[in-house]
């Protein structure tokens, strides 16, 4: 008999048995994730602009000293 030593399944099963698990798919959670996504959309747009402009600026500086 091969002995399985990994513990993840047992840990998760124990938490479920003890009623410690909550699925984060209630309307409140979904709303929070949607709100987070909206903020991250702004972060992504800001990043794309900063990234592009950083590259444009990088063309102008010659390092010699």
């Amino acid at each position, binding site marked *: 008999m091969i002995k399985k030593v990994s513990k*993840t399944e047992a840990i998760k099963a124990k938490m479920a048995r003890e009623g410690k698990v909550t699925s984060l798919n209630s309307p409140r959670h979904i709303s929070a*994730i949607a709100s*987070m996504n909206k903020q991250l959309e702004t972060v992504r747009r800001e990043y794309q602009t900063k990234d592009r*402009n*950083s590259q444009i*600026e990088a063309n102008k500086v*010659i390092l010699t000293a």
Partner: protein
Amino acid sequence: MNINIYITSIKKGKNLIKFLLMDEFNINEVNSKNLFKQYVKPSFDNFKDETYILAETEYVDKVYRDSYYHYYSSKLPNYKRNCIRLSFFEGKISDTDFRDKNKYKKLQQKYRGFIVLRPTDPFIIGRSIISPLLLKNNNFTVCVSKFHTTVYGLKFTVKGFPHSSQDTETISCAETSLWAIMEYFSNKYSDYQPLLPSKITNTLRQMSSERQIPSKGLSISEMSYALKEFGFGARIYSKREYGKEFESLLSCYVESGIPIIVTVDDEENIAHALLAIGHIKVENSKIDAMWPHTNSSIEHILQSKNIKIYDFDTINKDFIFIDDNQPSYQRASLNEPTIHYSAEWHKCKITHFIVPLYTKIYLEAYEAKNYILEFLTTGPEPLIDNSTVLLRTFLASSRSFKHEISKNETMQDDLKSLIIESAMPKFIWITEISTKELMKNKMANGLIILDATQKIIYSNKPLIIAAYQEKLILFDEKSGILQSNVLTLPRFQIFEHNLNNFEI
């Protein structure tokens, strides 16, 4: 042709160097004296008083030899092909030690690296690897790699960061920085190849509209392009674009153990490249002096919930630089990176940095850090009201992180198993959640691990696992739904293995 060997204490280093420059490079006495004072003495002054020097003539240095064949040999003056190598030992040595097999181990324990002197008057400081252990003041943590070398016939190893001065003809600050980065990475990881000056020239040939030698320097874009060609996923960050977040992003990458190319500029005549490779040890007073994070997008949430978030990367600390105009391991603040130069340099500010990322790190620091902030403030399991937390975010290889977690006796057992048994990419983003008081003791009480290969930051796609404030958050494998579990997480030791500690 014979190799001449000399051994002396660093206290008599001036006489030895003067003699070698006169005897080997045919430099007159006055110039030899000046060269020592201007270029060699600043390094020697940083070394411990008990240092001994072993000098070897007729040394074939791979970097100078490349410059010699591709440039110096075509000039009228008769440049020598060979160099002088100065090897350093902490403590007294004698020539007989090198022929006594019982003394070999002791010599290795004393060995602290080398400096090559090139026959390129006045820019004579060539390739060097100096162990921070040789320095009088080494209360810092930096990236280092292990280098193999020989001294007087015996093999030695030394841990340090590569350094060279520019010769201004084949290599300027830009090429020297590229060389040092590649020398470091190629010694540390098999994915990368070491670099010689001619390889840089050849790599950039297609981009260049003018002759490349003698060197007139490189643009930031050219440096980034070269890094890309040498196997990195290079990223450029500009101070003008990233504003007040620029320094914390720079700090985040340094904390990740990635040497980065920093550019300084006085907006007039000076534009210079150097490497940031670490920082001085953070004192408790610096942690106390931190200000809470201000981020316009989450400011209203922080205020309404009375949450204070401190960012470890905003700690006011000096960084350690490899600068080809200065001795190895130069320390300076990000606000005054050239304070140790002459007055004309003092107006210089850091304008850009280039990060040589592993090619499959698709999630970079700006997005990763913002994701963490959003997750902790507006996510499905936000920080509880009135929380005060200190966040320390860095990249690490999942191998190193799991290795250290496995050995970490302070880590809660269930979380340890869950982390070690989680499938992870080669690199992960880690945010340790702590407090000022815990961080002073190098402890945290929460962490978030992100997939650094996940470019999509929406719907918690980068999240691998999070544990903080009695919660364990991870995806259910079957349903794909994010789940929150109850988990009490005692404080645990933070991960400090991206940068090496040298103080003894």
